[in-house]
């Protein structure tokens, strides 16, 4: 009975993964299609991959996208972390909750509205649309994400640790750098990566605030798809998928390596203690 139930749950899992991954695999599969359409597979070719690497415009757009993502998530992480610390240490509960709500409203409000309002603002103050406007708006919509990732870590932190640090002679800056920041580092990193991926695949906001001569990958793919999807897009998607896969696998191995290192040092120490006894 138990075994049968186990099998059902496995089947469900496999089904879910198929639903999630099939479209991506389908896309990748046809990136090798000689026929040039996604209707029938006629033969194998690297042609579209060569085209991607030959397409200078596409490469520069990829680099632009990465640059915006890296910079915006970095700045948003700094601002968001400080903001989260600020919100956490607001004394009045009501003020704190209000600030939190303002943060959450930005999280749930549709990208289209955020994008449109940014466009209105930038044009109103006469800001030139382009790299800077995209960067600024990406920073803006990433901050709430970072705040949301960092706040729980601050709440988890034992508040008497800060009292203890002050007791041991630390001033406010030292408390921040030696106690608070190290304690919430996992939240900061998570916030950074979340902001990075949000920025990387944002379409709606970027579409509004980007100007002539500057484009990110999502906007570019959208405009190309409107002219009829070339398999070059498939090839590009395949490369990006592979890139993400390598990142994930790399992260996994780094984690494994750190774990075994920690374990080994612990064992070594235990041996030392046993020797002493």
């Amino acid at each position, binding site marked *: 009975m138990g075994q049968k139930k186990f099998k059902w749950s496995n089947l469900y899992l496999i089904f879910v993964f198929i639903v999630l991954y099939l479209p991506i695999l389908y896309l990748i599969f046809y990136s090798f299609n000689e026929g040039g359409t996604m209707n029938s597979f006629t033969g194998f070719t690297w042609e579209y991959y060569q085209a991607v690497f030959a397409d200078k415009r596409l490469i520069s757009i990829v680099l632009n996208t990465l640059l915006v993502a890296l910079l915006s998530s970095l700045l948003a992480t700094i601002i968001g972390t400080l903001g989260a610390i600020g919100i956490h240490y607001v004394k009045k509960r009501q003020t704190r909750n209000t600030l939190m709500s303002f943060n959450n409203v930005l999280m749930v409000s549709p990208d289209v509205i955020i994008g449109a309002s940014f466009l209105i603002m930038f044009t109103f103050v006469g800001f030139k649309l382009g790299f800077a406007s995209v960067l600024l708006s990406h920073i803006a919509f990433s901050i709430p994400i970072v705040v949301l990732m960092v706040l729980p870590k601050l709440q988890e932190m034992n508040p*008497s640790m800060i*009292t*203890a640090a002050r007791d041991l002679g630390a001033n406010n800056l030292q408390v921040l750098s030696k106690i608070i920041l190290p304690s919430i580092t996992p939240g900061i990193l998570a916030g950074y990566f979340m902001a990075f991926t949000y920025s990387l695949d944002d379409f709606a906001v970027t579409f509004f605030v980007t100007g002539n001569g500057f484009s990110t990958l999502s906007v570019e793919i959208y405009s190309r798809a409107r002219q009829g999807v070339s398999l070059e897009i498939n090839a590009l998607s395949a490369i990006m998928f592979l890139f993400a896969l390598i990142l994930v696998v790399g992260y996994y191995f780094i984690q494994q390596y750190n774990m075994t290192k920690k374990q080994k040092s612990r064992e070594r120490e235990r041996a030392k203690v046993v020797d*002493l006894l």
Partner: protein
Amino acid sequence: MTGNAIIEFNHVKKQYDDNVILKDIDLEIERGKFYTLLGPSGCGKTTILNLVAGFTEATEGTITLNGKKVNDIPPNQRTVNTVFQDYALFPHMNVFENVAFGLRIKKMNKNVIKEKVAEVLKMVQLSGYEERGISEMSGGQRQRVAIARALVNEPDVLLLDEPLSALDLKLRTDMQYELRELQQRLGITFIFVTHDQEEALAMSDIIFVMKEGEIVQSGTPVDIYDEPINRYVADFIGESNIVKGTMIQDYEVSFVGHTFECVDAGMRPNEKVEVVLRPEDLVLTSVEKGKLTVQVDTQLFRGVHYEIIGYDRDGNEWMVHSTKKAKVGSEVGLYFEPEDIHVMRFGESEQEFDARLESYEEE
């Protein structure tokens, strides 16, 4: 105000909004002694500790540390360190870094830090644990790390906020010995906060018994145990039998219908008083030899002794600690010496109490 005082509280008051935590506290802490603030939770004992450490500010009154007023000095500039109830160790640092924290803040030389940390870890018997993470340490070991982290800064006063409450009984008793021994070896003033009267009695030089934001009685453990000022202290510290009585004259008190010789004096004749008899001072004997006769109601085996509850003819409850068994339902006599009787006046302040004791003890 002797020159040996390291901390002085002068009419210190503390309140949050309308909630009065401390009412007019006056106290003096001398250098090199082990002090205990004893009282139930919510009596303000931790608030006193926080005032000394600088985590909260007094609403009124002055606090001096080493002769200097410290009301407005932040905790990081006071030469006191605290061992917290939950230890408050830094989980992202190993044992060495935890202990070295205060020294690193002071920007000490690396080799000096290494030496000092090694020394203090040896003192708390944690040599060889430097590289351990905090999560790999047991409760008792964490406790020692917390103590080492505070002591390494060589504070004038070490504040301990119920540091033993999270440990199991055996470990707690061991730590009591260790803390006492450590304090005597280092000669640092310890202020220990607890609600556990046994801990307080075992370790302290001076105990402050607190109730609802006031210090009810202060003194050595023996003084407080043998001569509690009122019913509250007698009840809080140790087990006690408390009955109503009348002070016939000096050295003569009457209760439960008999008059007994006692060692208390300085009260008005025929004053209504309360009489304390400790359970371990009552000796089981035959009805003829006893000064009191009770009927044994229940008997519990406590390991070291039997705890016997009996009632006299007036219905007063008497608790007796005896190594001998009694028969439930039987009548037994209770014998006690005149010095086992302690007489307490109603509503006597600590000053009046001390003055009265002095007046007749000098004779």
